[in-house]
């Protein structure tokens, strides 16, 4: 037991490294928020464009969505990070991570929002149009408010799963939690910083995982 505490919860290492882990936490939070905002907005925008039913645009959206759902995020991160500098575009590693995860989230979000829009009965469209609403007015005031409500649980769960991928940033040197923790581990020759990093993730993400679970039970009628 003592050996275990010595390896994973060494007090003087906790005291020494908590500011570093905290720095990582802030970086993780910053990137996570940026990804959630751009990813969800882009996903919603794509779903709205798709509802215009312009054949060519729809085909492009479907290809984009399918590709980013089928490719492992780490593969895309490495292609962007190592490929772009060689053609003269150099962007910092945190921006690579933000860009890639935003696109992945946008792809999943588009699919979910689009399913939500499709699930609104045609009568809602017709009733709104007959009262004089235009296409966009119907979409914005009648269809989307109902559709988005239906999509809250799946969107929450997917967003959490993709936001956790900020940990992939460590591979390209983004100084987020995991990166700080592994650096501190190799300096100290002890697993305490790694345990601190893992616990930091648990503290950050357990509330949102629990929120997702709560939303799913509240909206459970959808399944039956």
């Amino acid at each position: 037991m003592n050996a275990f505490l010595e390896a994973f919860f060494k007090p003087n290492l906790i005291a020494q490294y908590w500011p570093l882990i905290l720095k990582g936490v802030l970086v993780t939070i910053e990137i996570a928020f940026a990804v959630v905002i751009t990813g969800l907005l882009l996903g919603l925008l794509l779903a709205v464009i798709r509802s215009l039913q312009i054949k060519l645009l729809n085909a492009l959206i479907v290809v984009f969505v399918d590709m980013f759902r089928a490719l492992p995020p780490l593969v895309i991160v490495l292609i962007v990070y190592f490929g772009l500098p060689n053609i003269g575009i150099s962007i910092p590693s945190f921006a690579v991570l933000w860009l890639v995860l935003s696109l992945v989230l946008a792809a999943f979000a588009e699919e979910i929002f689009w399913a939500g829009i499709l699930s609104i009965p045609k009568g809602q469209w017709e009733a709104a149009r007959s009262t004089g609403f235009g296409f966009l007015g119907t979409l914005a005031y009648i269809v989307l408010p109902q559709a988005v409500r239906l999509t809250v649980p799946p969107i929450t769960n997917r967003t959490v799963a993709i936001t956790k991928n900020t940990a992939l940033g460590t591979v390209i040197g983004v100084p987020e939690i995991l990166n700080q923790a592994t650096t501190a581990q190799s300096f100290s020759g002890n697993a305490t910083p790694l345990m601190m990093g893992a616990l930091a993730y648990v503290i950050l993400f357990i509330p949102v995982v629990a929120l997702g679970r709560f939303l799913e039970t509240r909206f459970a009628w959808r399944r039956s």
Partner: protein
Amino acid sequence: MDALIHQFFNLDIMTRALPLVLQGLQQTILLCLIVIPLGLAGGLLFALASLSASRAVRYGMILAIDFFRAVPPLVLLIFVYSGLPFAGIRLSPLTAVAVAFFLNTSSYYGEIYRAGIESVGRGQWDAARSTGLTAFATLTHVVLPQAVRNVLPDLVSNTVEVVKLTSIASVVALPEMLYSADMARSVTFNASPIVLAAAIYLAMLWPVVRLISRMERRIAS
């Protein structure tokens, strides 16, 4: 434009990298054959425990599932691979990957099974038990077949996530497809080998992603 093609779609470099990437593909497939069945079986256990009649078991299991869904799989993997040796537990990359992915994917599969089992009406249990079926037979012959059918799109979709997940095994130097492609990338200073790996991932997973979209739409309508 030429630079773009040279850097990302260099056929010459892709041809040279192909044997290495295919070797990696074999490891990726092997990894999937280990991780997916383990996750499917573990998930069922997790789900049954989280529906247990004992409140302590139920809450304990739900806490464990949420814990493993909150920790990013890469963090779990690095913890198992390079943290546990400090406690005297030294695992090979393959074992570390299997253990970390088992905990992660079982939690996700477990949640899906649980939703499926809960979607089967209580009356099904009662009817099956009243005809003389044992609890176990009720589960395997009446409840699970219906439960699995109800959540099939989610099960398939999570399996795609697991296949994609195997790519992070590259971080602990397990020579799967992304690792091999990245090796070729670092030797050639060219991103084409990774684009080649991406193309292989697409070829494997794109049809499944299409299938999921179709299954989800059919259930929605």
